[in-house]
C-alpha cells in the first residue's frame, strides 16, 4: 500500500541531497529524505586506521557494508568479477547521513572559469566526449558563496591569482601553517609560484554553533570527533528537520522510480529498514545517490514508456564515468618535516590547473593529509624492499621526514567508461547491481605525468634529497570523486539533464550530485556539488510556486 503523498522525495542524504532537502523544506514543501545508510554522530567516531572510508582493510566504517552490496567490475580484458565495497575496484564513496561529507578531507574548491568551458578552451582529444557545461562559473558563483557561508569554509585564497572572481572572502580564517606548509610555501615562492591556504569545509573558529578543529591527525576517511568538520549531516540536514517539513528515513534502499502512462514520475519504491517494500508517492523526485548509484537507479527504473530506464532515451545514462587521475610525487628530507598537526593538507597551488603547454587542463597541487603508519607502509621508492629489517629502518628513518604532494588531474571523459546494471548479479534486496567498465583517456595520463613532474620539482626546491613520482594508471577512474554519469546539457540527444538538473523528458525528476558534472575540474568536487544543489533547488522552488509540478 502506498504511503501518504508528499511534495518531494530526495534519494540520498549526501552533499547534494542534504542541501536540496533543506532548501525545499524551508520553502514549505513536504519532503521525505531517503538514505540507504545509517545516521552517525561525532560520538560514534572511532579512530580506527584499518576500518575507515580511506583505508578499508577491515571494511568501510560508514558504509555500505560488504555483505549486502556487491557490484560487478569489468577489467581491461573484459574479465568480470563481483566486488565488495571495501575493494578498490568497487569505487565506493560512502553510505550514511551526510554521505561522503561525513568523513571527507573537506577541501572546498570552486572550479575555475575554464573548467566549465573545457571543449571551447582546448578542443576534445580524440576518443573523448570533452564538452562545455551549459552553465558558466558566473551562473554558479552566488551558490558557491551560499555553500561557503551555510556549510562553512575556512582558508585564504587571496594569494591565488588564478582563482575565479569571488564576491565575498571565505567566512573563516585558515589554520596556522604546519611545518610542511612552511617548507613548501617558501619553496613555491622561490619558484615564482602562488601558494595559498586551502579552502576547507572545516571550522577553524567556532562557527554556526560548532567548535573549531582540534588538529588531530585523523581527518580524511574518519568522522570528526569534535564535529568541527562541516558536512551536510551537521548543517543543512538538521536545519531541514527543524522545519518539520522534512522526514529523514535511514536504511532505506531505493528500488525504482515510479512513473505513470503520461510519462511523469509519481514517486519511488524502496525497501525500508525492515526490508519491507514501500511506495512513497511524490510530486517530484530528486536523485542524489552519487554518480554510480544515481545512474543505477535511473537504469533500474524501467517501464513500457522508458524501456531503457529513465532519462536514457539516447543511451547517455551511466556514460562518461570519471573521477580524478591523482598524480604527484614523494620526497624524502634529511630533517624532520612532520609535526603531527592535522589535518595535514594545508597549502596548494593553482599554477598548473590551466595553461600547461599542449595539455587540455591540469590539476591543483597540494600537500597530502596526514599519513597514519599503516598508510606509510606502501610509500616506498620504486624497487626498494617492502619487508624485513630494511622495511623497519625505512619506517623509523622516514616517517617524519617525507612529504607527499599531489593533485586531482581533470579527466578527459570517455563515453565507454560507464555504469550499467548487471544482467545477473543482484544485491541483498534483489535489485540489479551496478556494473562498472572502462578506462582512463591516454591524454589524462599525459597530463598526470606533467603534473607529477611539477610536484617533484616543488619537492626538490623544498630540499628533498630523494624524490619519486606517483603516476595515474590507465584503468577506470571514479572512486570518491565519481562524476559524469548523468551529463548536464542543452541537447537531449547528448545529455541526460538540462541546465537546471531536470531530466530532459521527465520534468518532475531531477538529478543533483556529481553525476551531472560535464567535466570534473582539477579539484575535489564537493563544493561544486553543493553549489549546484543550491542552484537547482532554487529552480525547483520557483517551478513549485508556479505549476507545483502537476
Amino acid at each position, binding site marked *: 500500500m502506498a504511503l501518504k503523498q508528499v511534495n518531494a522525495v530526495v534519494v540520498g542524504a549526501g552533499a547534494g541531497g542534504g542541501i536540496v532537502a533543506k532548501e525545499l523544506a524551508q520553502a514549505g514543501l513536504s519532503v521525505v529524505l531517503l538514505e540507504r545508510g545509517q545516521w552517525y554522530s561525532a560520538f560514534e567516531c572511532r579512530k*580506527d586506521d584499518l576500518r575507515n572510508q580511506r583505508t578499508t582493510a577491515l571494511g568501510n566504517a560508514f558504509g555500505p557494508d560488504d555483505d549486502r552490496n556487491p557490484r560487478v567490475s569489468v577489467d581491461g580484458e573484459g574479465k568480470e568479477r563481483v566486488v565488495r565495497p571495501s575493494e578498490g575496484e568497487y569505487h565506493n564513496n560512502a553510505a550514511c547521513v551526510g554521505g561522503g561529507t561525513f568523513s571527507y578531507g573537506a577541501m572546498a574548491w570552486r572550479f575555475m572559469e575554464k573548467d566549465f568551458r573545457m571543449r571551447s578552451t582546448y578542443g576534445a582529444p580524440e576518443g573523448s566526449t570533452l564538452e562545455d557545461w551549459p552553465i558558466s562559473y558566473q551562473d554558479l558563483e552566488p551558490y558557491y558563496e551560499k555553500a561557503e557561508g551555510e556549510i562553512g569554509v575556512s582558508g585564504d585564497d587571496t594569494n591565488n591569482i588564478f582563482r575565479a572572481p569571488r564576491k565575498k572572502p571565505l567566512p573563516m580564517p585558515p589554520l596556522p601553517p604546519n611545518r610542511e606548509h612552511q617548507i613548501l610555501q617558501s619553496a613555491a615562492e622561490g619558484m615564482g609560484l602562488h601558494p595559498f591556504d586551502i579552502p576547507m569545509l572545516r571550522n577553524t573558529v567556532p562557527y554556526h554553533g560548532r567548535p573549531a578543529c582540534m588538529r588531530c591527525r585523523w581527518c580524511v576517511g574518519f568522522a570528526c570527533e569534535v564535529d568541527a568538520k562541516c558536512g551536510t549531516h551537521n548543517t543543512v540536514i538538521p536545519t531541514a528537520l527543524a522545519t518539520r517539513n522534512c522526514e529523514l528515513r535511514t536504511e532505506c534502499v531505493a528500488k525504482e522510480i515510479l512513473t505513470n502512462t503520461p510519462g511523469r514520475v509519481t514517486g519511488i519504491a524502496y525497501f525500508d529498514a525492515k526490508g519491507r517494500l514501500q511506495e512513497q508517492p511524490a510530486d517530484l523526485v530528486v536523485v542524489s545517490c552519487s554518480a554510480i548509484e544515481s545512474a543505477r537507479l535511473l537504469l533500474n527504473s524501467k517501464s513500457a514508456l522508458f524501456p531503457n530506464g529513465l532519462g536514457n532515451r539516447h543511451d547517455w545514462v551511466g556514460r562518461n564515468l570519471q573521477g580524478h587521475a591523482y598524480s604527484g610525487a614523494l620526497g624524502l628530507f634529511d630533517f624532520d618535516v612532520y609535526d603531527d598537526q592535522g589535518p595535514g593538507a594545508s597549502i596548494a597551488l593553482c599554477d598548473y590547473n590551466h595553461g600547461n603547454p599542449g595539455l587540455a587542463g591540469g590539476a591543483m597541487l597540494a600537500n597530502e593529509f596526514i599519513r597514519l603508519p599503516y598508510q606509510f607502509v606502501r610509500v616506498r621508492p620504486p624497487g626498494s624492499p617492502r619487508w624485513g629489517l630494511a622495511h623497519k629502518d625505512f619506517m623509523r628513518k622516514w616517517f617524519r621526514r617525507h612529504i607527499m604532494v599531489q593533485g586531482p588531474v581533470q579527466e578527459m571523459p570517455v563515453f565507454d567508461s560507464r555504469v550499467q546494471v548487471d544482467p545477473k548479479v543482484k544485491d541483498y534486496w534483489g535489485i540489479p547491481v551496478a556494473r562498472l567498465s572502462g578506462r582512463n583517456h591516454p591524454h589524462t595520463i599525459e597530463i598526470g605525468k606533467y603534473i607529477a613532474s611539477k610536484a617533484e620539482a616543488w619537492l626538490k626546491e623544498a630540499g628533498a634529497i630523494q624524490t619519486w613520482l606517483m603516476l595515474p594508471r590507465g584503468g577506470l577512474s571514479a572512486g570518491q570523486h565519481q562524476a559524469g554519469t548523468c551529463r548536464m546539457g542543452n541537447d537531449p540527444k547528448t545529455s541526460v539533464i538540462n541546465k537546471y538538473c531536470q531530466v530532459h523528458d521527465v520534468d518532475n525528476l531531477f538529478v543533483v550530485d556529481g553525476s551531472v558534472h560535464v567535466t570534473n575540474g582539477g579539484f575535489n568536487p564537493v563544493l561544486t556539488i553543493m553549489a549546484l544543489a543550491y542552484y537547482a533547488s532554487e529552480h525547483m522552488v520557483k517551478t513549485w510556486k508556479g505549476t507545483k509540478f502537476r
Partner: protein
Amino acid sequence: MGKRNNLSRRKFIQLAASVAASGPAISCTGVISPWRFFTVEEARTVEAICDHLVPADQDPGATEAGVVNFIDRQLVGHLKRWQSAYREGIAGVDQTSLGLSGKKFVDLPAGKQTEVLTALEKGSAPGEVWKRRSPQEFFELIVNHTMQGFYGDPRHGGNRDGISWKMLGLTYPPVRGRLQYDLTKPSNQKPA
C-alpha cells in the same frame, strides 16, 4: 592434520573434547589448537614468516606485536574469504622449504627461510600448491596482513600496546589533538 575452518564447529568440538577427545580437533601431535583458525603447526609457521617480514631488532617484531593473533582473529572475521588461501599457502611454504632445503619452514635456519620467502615473492617457489595458486599472491597477502597487524589499531588483535606507534614516536592512544583542545575555556577554542 586435517583440522577445518569452521568457528562454531571448532568451538563445539572444543567443548566436546573436554568430555571425549575426538579425531578432527586434534592435530597429528595430539594438541588441541588454542587458535581460532590456525592449527598449532600452522601458527608456528605463520609466526616464523611474520618475524621475517617485521623482524625484532631494537624494537619488537611481528610476533611480539601479536600479528599472528591479528591474522587468526581476522580469518574468522572480516578476512574469512582468505581462509583457504592461508590453509593452502602455509602448506605450500612447507612444500617449498622441503623442496629447496629438505626441511619444514620452521626447522630451517634463518638464512634458508629468507631464501624460501624470496622464492615466493619472485614466483619461483617449488611445490604442488603453487601449481594451482600463485605464490606471489599468497606472499603479498601475508605481507599486507602482517603490516596491518603490526601497525593497525590494537583493537583488532595486533600492535600490542601500540608498540609500532611507539617505535615511530607517535602517541598511543592518539590523544594529540585532544590535548590541545580544552572546551572548558571558551578563549581556548582556537587551536594552539
